[in-house]
């Protein structure tokens, strides 16, 4: 291994969701500044296996910052010290030789730990199932250019739709609120003409499911926006709140 960084890792180890869990300390040597944070964990795990120990479990897949699978709460911040960067795209050049780095899982009631740094985020899927879609069956669509969408609206919908569902917003929030995640999906459709038919019902159903999953309330701290690796804007939450109140006042279902 061709690197000159020596670091101390304090990593949360927890056998399963019922285990209490605790920090373990691991020194790692000869780390290259060009390695990604997860590649540094690959090095650690390779060593643990060779020593006959249990490797650290962590979620990851694309390692390009788009699948949303990687997590890790690094030195008190989801996805580590940089803004707009997921853990898999965080490189060791962002740390200094000799640093001690503390790594924990996302911590939220709605995200129980599976093992070590891997958590269960299926609550997000259930929120989407509750209303995060446009009800259009395959084959029903009219020509794509028959609905012009103003470029600014399309761009704003796209910006909201770039959420990767990683859960950093929940992990960053002192209340473990999922408002940024939910509002991003609500906004994407609220901004598009295709989303209008179900606009009210959608926001009511998704918020109800969000609450049922045990996510906390929003107190407008803004930590979610600051830590979101995709720069999802807090204004989505404002839009969702507006839509929610409007829907509650005007629909008969509320």
């Amino acid at each position, binding site marked *: *291994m061709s690197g000159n960084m020596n670091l101390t890792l304090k990593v949360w180890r927890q056998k399963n969701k019922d285990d209490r869990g605790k920090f373990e300390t691991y020194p790692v040597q000869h780390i290259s500044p060009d390695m990604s944070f997860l590649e540094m964990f690959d090095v650690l795990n390779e060593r643990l296996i060779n020593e006959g120990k249990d490797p650290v479990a962590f979620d990851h897949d694309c390692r390009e910052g*788009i699948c949303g699978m990687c997590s890790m709460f690094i030195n008190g911040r989801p996805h580590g010290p940089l803004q707009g960067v997921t853990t898999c795209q965080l*490189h060791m050049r962002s740390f200094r030789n000799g640093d001690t780095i503390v790594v924990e899982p996302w911590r939220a009631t709605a995200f129980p730990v599976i093992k070590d740094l891997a958590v269960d985020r299926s609550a997000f899927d259930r929120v989407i199932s509750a209303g995060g879609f*446009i009800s259009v069956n395959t084959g029903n669509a009219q020509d794509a*250019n028959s609905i012009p969408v103003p470029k600014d609206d399309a761009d704003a919908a796209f910006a909201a739709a770039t959420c990767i569902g990683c859960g950093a917003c929940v992990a960053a929030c002192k209340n473990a609120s999922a408002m940024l995640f939910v509002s991003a999906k609500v906004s994407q459709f609220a901004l598009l003409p295709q989303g209008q038919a179900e606009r009210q019902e959608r926001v009511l159903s998704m918020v109800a499911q969000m609450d049922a999953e045990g996510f906390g309330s929003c107190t407008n701290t803004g930590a979610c926006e600051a830590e979101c690796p995709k720069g999802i804007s807090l204004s989505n939450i404002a839009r969702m709140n507006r839509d929610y109140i409007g829907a509650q006042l005007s629909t008969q279902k509320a």
Partner: protein
Amino acid sequence: MTTSPKLDARIPEGTLEQKWTKYRSTVPLVNPANKRNLEIIIVGSGLAGASAAAALAELGYKVKVFCFQDSARRAHSIAAQGGINAAKNYQNDGDSTYRLFYDTIKGGDYRAREANVYRLAEVSANIIDQCVAQGVPFAREYGGMLDNRSFGGTQVKRTFYAAGQTGQQLLLGAYSALQRQVGLGQVDMLTRHEMLDIVNVDGKCRGIIARDLVSGKLERHFGHAVLLCSGGYGNVFFLSTNAMGSNVTAAWKAHKKGAFFGNPCFTQIHPTCIPVSGDHQSKLTLMSESLRNDGRIWVPKRKEDADAIRAGKLNPNDLKEEDRDYYLERRYPAFGNLVPRDVASRAAKERCDAGFGVNQTGEAVYLDFAFNMKYKYGKKEATKKGIQNPTEEQLTELGKAVVKEQYGNLFDMYQQITGVNPYENPMMIYPAVHYTMGGLWVDYNLMTSVPGLYALGEANFSDHGANRLGASALMQGLADGYFVIPYTIGAYLSNEIRTRAIDTNHEAFEAAEKSVRERLEKLKNINGTKTVDYFHKRLGKIMWNQCGMARNAEGLKQAIADIQSLRAEFWRDVRVPGGVNEFNPELEKAGRVADFLELGELMCHDALNRNESCGGHFREEFQTEEGEALRDDENFGYVAAWEMTGDANWELHREDLKYENIKIAQRSYK
């Protein structure tokens, strides 16, 4: 040459234009009441799997979807960047169904089936309509209409996109449609589950054995039909642009139980990826083909300049225009930087092998945006804003904003990985493994050689021949899932309405589970001295060196011997920590690498058998004087479908490729 009697592609009669339309209207149907009793298992939740699941559930079938990730939304389709092709002709630039069909066949170097590709081109337009209806936020022009960009191997603009994250937006669209069906109770979604075998009863596929990755428990699932939508196998090379978890296991288990593997050696090496920087690297990252719209590829004309750049003594920005070799524009003036991927990759390798590489390893070329940033976008913006006689700096600044809007996420990714700012410096890129055209052999219905077992998307071999065109993978995945399988599955299921759900205590399920369990125990009990990654990296090196961008008979024979001995060593000396009945990512990896160690050998056999060069398969012995791929249509104008007849033993079956609508010619982009 005649087609093997074991391969019936079931291509409908009629003219090319009528085949699908007529077939679709005459294929047997299943009435809604019966659909409720028919169960379909789908393995994989990417574009093909999620779209098939949503479409079939909407029709009323009972669907179960499996994915190894923690959510269906993580499937690797999410990482596709540049776009999706469709023959909409919104640009009025001469596009049509026929032209998309023609470009795809030619791009695939005449090794794909005409009927399948024509159908793909026909349904391409419906895909865009469907996605827009779902709320997929494609890029738009100021008038509110959809925007298009150009991709390699075509001379029209037919690629729809959402910045550099089109795959993400399309997958989230399909995922939303899938989750809607989950909410309605039509789909049972099993995340963190991995399929470890298929179960055949009386010659038909009737279910799968899956492992719950959290508890480690093995489960039996019955289905009247099973759809494998499990993606490609590029990770056999260890380093690829695929996600870490992407694997061949589902397809390979099916292969071992009777599904033929089609053209396994057809691998796509993508020309524009971030170069390898060191041994620590776990994967490679793609820089979208769409960048070739605006980026010009070059190396220095003179070797001494290349040496100086490598030594850090010369800044590439300072190298004069006349001292640069825009080798794609030079060699292929008609298509320039937009030649297909196989051609662009080989050209980069040729320059680097000749000593013109620009990074420390000598394996990188430049992808330079400075010119278009200034003169294409900068000038346009200056005119729009009414700036008279803008300075060069102004032009760069104005152009930068446009480039940022188009490719911002890619530029950020590049900077994050390399530590170099691509707005200021040309990107350094090199080819890397990206996609596999090969896959399970399927007929026109997308059914494999095992009745009731289907393969969709990248997991099948069907539409891209020996080289896939950019922005066509997303098109194929969604075509198969939304618009093909919902019709073609009727041909099979209409005969299954009397088949009751088979009890999973059936002996076939029993036996399959037992063999899966034994294999897991075996992996666990080797307790050797080397990690799974150690073997995976070694396999990757063999494959890259001998079965990568250039291949020859001698190297392939050596690779086969090397893989065989590596496989034996793996089963003797691998170390898998932890237990079988628990969350154990190392055990998952071990099973996947064990399958790669078998697949790699088959890929080499296939490459060795194909004594010609075509598309991504370049045999050094078979090239033109100008170094282009030299096909042998007479002897190799076929699909190679491999049947596994025993441990590491295969029999080749040939499906003759007939071209009735296209005049087959040497592919030229000059």
